[in-house]
């Protein structure tokens, strides 16, 4: 029996008396892809941050890669790659320096191998000529591409992507996609606004409504476009 990449049972999370996630349950088998849909404020980013071990659950059960959160979060770190809303790059370091820093944090050894991997990734997203550029001088699209490199640098088993195609034109998106595709040793959870693309990709879907409750959880084929639209249209309480 394979250990699920993600397993949530009755997860809930509150901030200062406001409940942002309620009773969320989902299981993602390893190597598969989960798309999280929902309107603004539905708690999608919060859910992703909990999976990234950056936030603790307020209640319910949560485990990623077989590690129970929050108690065993430390065991999952280093096996997760996270693309956030912000690129998580230091503005006063160059692209290469940023990636080198992350490589060191993740213990990529030896240094030459890490360098080679950094060079290879930058090449694949078309950012190699900009390796010496300060992060503050990058456009949003460039920063996003570097952020993807940062997230996959250490070959994580679980990828958590918050709007991975934000700021990316179709060409850049095409460069990035192979780096973040799910695969044999890699599961993926993607948060996206674009529910049409999300549903079109297949895999499993978790749709959150306003207030962070689950509106739908199951295979992508089971949620019609009309239903998805309805979730987005529902007025916030």
């Amino acid at each position, binding site marked *: 029996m394979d250990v699920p990449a993600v397993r949530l049972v009755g997860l809930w999370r509150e901030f200062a*008396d406001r409940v942002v996630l309620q009773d969320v349950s989902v299981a993602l088998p390893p190597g598969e892809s989960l798309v999280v849909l929902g309107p603004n404020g539905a708690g999608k980013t919060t859910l992703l941050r909990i999976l990234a071990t950056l936030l603790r659950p307020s209640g319910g059960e949560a485990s990623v890669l077989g590690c129970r959160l929050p108690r065993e979060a430390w065991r999952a770190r280093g096996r997760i790659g996270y693309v956030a809303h912000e690129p998580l790059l230091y503005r006063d370091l160059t692209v290469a320096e940023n990636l080198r820093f992350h490589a060191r944090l993740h213990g990529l050894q030896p240094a030459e191998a890490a360098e080679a991997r950094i060079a290879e990734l930058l090449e694949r997203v078309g950012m190699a000529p900009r390796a010496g550029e300060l992060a503050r001088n990058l456009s949003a699209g460039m920063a996003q591409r570097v952020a993807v490199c940062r997230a996959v640098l250490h070959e994580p088993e679980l990828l958590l992507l918050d709007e991975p195609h934000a700021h990316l034109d179709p060409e850049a998106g095409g460069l990035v996609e192979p780096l973040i595709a799910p695969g044999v040793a890699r599961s993926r959870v993607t948060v996206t606004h674009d529910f049409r693309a999300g549903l079109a990709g297949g895999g499993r879907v978790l749709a959150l409504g306003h207030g962070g409750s689950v509106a739908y959880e199951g295979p992508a084929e089971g949620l019609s476009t009309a239903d998805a639209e309805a979730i987005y249209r529902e007025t916030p*309480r």
Partner: protein
Amino acid sequence: MRGLRTLSIATVAAIVAGVALVFFYAPLDADQGFIQKIFYLHVPLGIVALAGFMVAAVHAIRHLRSGDPIHDARSYVSIHISVIFGVAVLATGSIWARASWGKWWVWDEPTLVSFLIVFLLYATYYPLRYAIEDRDRQARYASVFAIMAGAFVPLNFLAVRLAESLLHPRVFATAEGGMPGPMWLTFLVSLAGIALLWLTLVRFELAAKDASAQLARLRRALEAPARAAPARRDLARSGAR
């Protein structure tokens, strides 16, 4: 609140006994006269306030380890009451200084000076808490502060003592060595009374917070009955104010 009534009665009894002893039993000091009797208020207040800060640090450690907000509430209230006692320590110390030395403040009484510094530190507990919006983080950071401050107190006393002893001999040599029997008894009873007072006030404030937290919870439940109610939340989630 169980035991609160017994506690209050015991406190009143101890304080009445203490006052009686102070006024009718304890000897009159030859040098300083009647005003010396403020010693029976000033020193116990100081000892209890400092002990209170230590207790708060212990609660803070328990809060960090368990994450249970009840410990945060206990830590907060302990600091709160100790800070109030701290104001009283400074006030009574100042009165004593004025009566003994003619000045409203003396720098060569190390215990009083260390107390001032400790008080200034714990007074920053409130702005620190209020500046952090997220309640969980606020409680955690407050506990971190309480632990730092608890470690600080003995260090501070050491440093101030050392600074003064090298320059001036102790002036208020009453609290150690050479206290006659009747003074000791009066002192101990006063100490017991003040300690019980601290405990009672802390219990009272915790009970009040618990009540207001339950009230807030009921109000919320009434306002949003349709929303799925998460598991029972503990007192300080809404009541650490």
